């Protein structure tokens, strides 16, 4: 990261740290949601931009993270906050690994379609397996354990914990792009054949990459479960997969800051528009179309072009 990037990161971090002191309560809730979705959108963007894989079923990892951790908190007595999140992330990573074993052999549209098929398959199982998941009624009333003696029921504490956890995950994402393996993943994206000829194990790299991103998306999902204190099949359905795609795309999939800005705009727009019109989803849809037509590189693309 260059000097300017570091500066922006520091400023953003400072604003986020001071945020609870300057903003009213309901905005704190919104920004917490934005931060959670930032990580989710970042994993999607990483998959596309660093790995060249277009995922159309990304809600699987997010949703399984949410469900696994919620079930953990519900059924394992005394499961701590962080262990619950870890459990969710682990479940998501495990499923990402299993699905990934099939996915890495695909490319292009077929990859996207298989992710869609898996998403629908797992969504349908979650939806219909009422005994465990609660089906349409969802899961609620799972405990919200304290962390280091701090009550997570306090929105400010929850905000800081979310910020630190997700900040660390985002840093890990950024760090990954600088590692040798990150380079290999990018080389596969730009030319899979050539990477293969250079002796890299393409499928293994993709699989590890997928599992890693599944883990991170699982963390976002688990946090989301605690944030909402309730989860339903909407965390794992195709709509969620579409939403994350929108978030990453609005911000710009080619830029590190893209998903961060994108999830901010997406959540803010949904909240803001829905506060004064019932037709907010229509406006949101029109915004997507406008972004595709006029800013194909996303908002970040527009900003970069102006410079």
């Amino acid at each position, binding site marked *: 990261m260059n000097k300017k990037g570091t500066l922006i990161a520091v400023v953003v971090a400072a604003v986020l740290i001071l945020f609870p002191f300057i903003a009213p309560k309901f905005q704190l809730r919104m920004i917490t949601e934005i931060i959670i979705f930032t990580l989710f959108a970042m994993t999607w963007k990483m998959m*596309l931009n660093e790995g060249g894989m*277009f995922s159309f079923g990304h809600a699987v990892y997010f949703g399984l993270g949410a469900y696994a951790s919620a079930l953990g908190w519900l059924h394992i007595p005394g499961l701590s906050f962080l262990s619950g999140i870890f459990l969710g992330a682990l479940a998501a990573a495990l499923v990402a690994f299993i699905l990934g074993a*099939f996915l890495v052999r695909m490319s292009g549209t077929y990859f996207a379609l298989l992710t869609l*098929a898996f998403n629908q398959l797992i969504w349908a199982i979650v939806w219909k397996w009422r005994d465990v998941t609660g089906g349409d009624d969802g899961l609620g009333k799972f405990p919200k354990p304290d962390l280091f003696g701090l009550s997570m029921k306090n929105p400010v504490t929850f905000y800081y914990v979310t910020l630190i956890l997700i900040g660390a995950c985002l840093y890990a994402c950024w760090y990954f792009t600088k590692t040798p393996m990150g380079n290999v993943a990018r080389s596969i994206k730009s030319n899979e054949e050539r990477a293969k000829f250079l002796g890299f194990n393409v499928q293994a790299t993709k699989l590890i990459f997928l599992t890693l991103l599944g883990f991170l998306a699982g963390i976002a999902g688990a946090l989301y479960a605690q944030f909402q204190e309730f989860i339903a099949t909407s965390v794992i359905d195709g709509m969620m997969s579409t939403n994350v795609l929108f978030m990453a795309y609005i911000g710009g999939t080619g830029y590190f800051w893209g998903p961060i800005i994108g999830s901010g705009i997406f959540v803010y727009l949904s909240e803001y528009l829905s506060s004064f019109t019932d037709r907010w989803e229509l406006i949101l849809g029109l915004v997507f179309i406008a972004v595709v037509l006029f800013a*194909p590189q996303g908002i970040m693309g527009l900003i970069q072009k102006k410079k």
Partner: protein
Amino acid sequence: MAAGIGERRIFRGCGFPAVISAGEDRNLGERNESMDALASTIVIQILHGLAYGMLLFLVSSGLTLVFGMMSVLNLAHASFYMLGAYFSYQMLKWVGNFWIGLLVCPILVAGLGILMERFLLRRVHAGGHVQEFVLTAGIAFVVMETVKWIWGTEPLPVPIPALLSGSVNIIGNVYPAYRLFILFFSLVVLAFLAYILMKTRLGITVRAAVSDRDMVSALGTNTPFVFMLVMGIGTWLAGLAGVIAGPFISTYPGMAGEILVDCFVVTVTGGLGSLGGAVVASFLIGQLSSFGILLIPRFAIVFAFLLMAVVLIIKPSGLFGEKG
């Protein structure tokens, strides 16, 4: 499914009504005791599956043609199906004749499809798959919200035309005539489509473009114009399916999402771009959902997706696909 639950979701599977909808003959369940109950249940179930399968075919044939030619996975395709159903509802209200709606509405829908291709899809085609995905998803979003805005979220019943409101006796079962109409009408459309594809100049061009677009373009065909036509035909088929689906499963904002997922299963299983594959896969999925709901009602929906995943894993190009 109640409109309240499914309306916001673009994707939802298996919209096949296991129970006969209110508009249809309520005597359907009554069986002639003298007949072998099992055999007649199977026949009825096969007919159900065929009717839904044909509906699926009408929608997914457009999807698969458009994909074959333009490599565009049109997420908004099912929205045209929904528009067909709503237009038909409106037409029925204004004109009071189902058959005029059947003639006019698909053409209106096709017009919208052509406009979408010309002014939206074509502009982002160079941008690749991600852009097309987001664009068509955005359009699906907008169509659904507009439909909710104009017609509300409640399911709107479309009466079955008087001519077909009766029922037919099939080996001791009373079967709604309208479902048989769906079956035969779709077969006629299928024959028509096959004729166009196999025998006309347009069909030859389309088939050539499916196998090698650049070559066809280099040989002097105006491929963008052919794309537009194919898009028009595809959306016309979707609109047609929507019109005849109205009285069958009633008209509601979630109907697009429900059939879209099934159509994806059909197109992928049959092979992207393969019309023959779409026929076979529609038949398969129709029977699968018909018997699945009868035998294992709870997890019936899972099997279609499982089939799609398994086919993709074993043969990514689908049962009849050539590429991939």
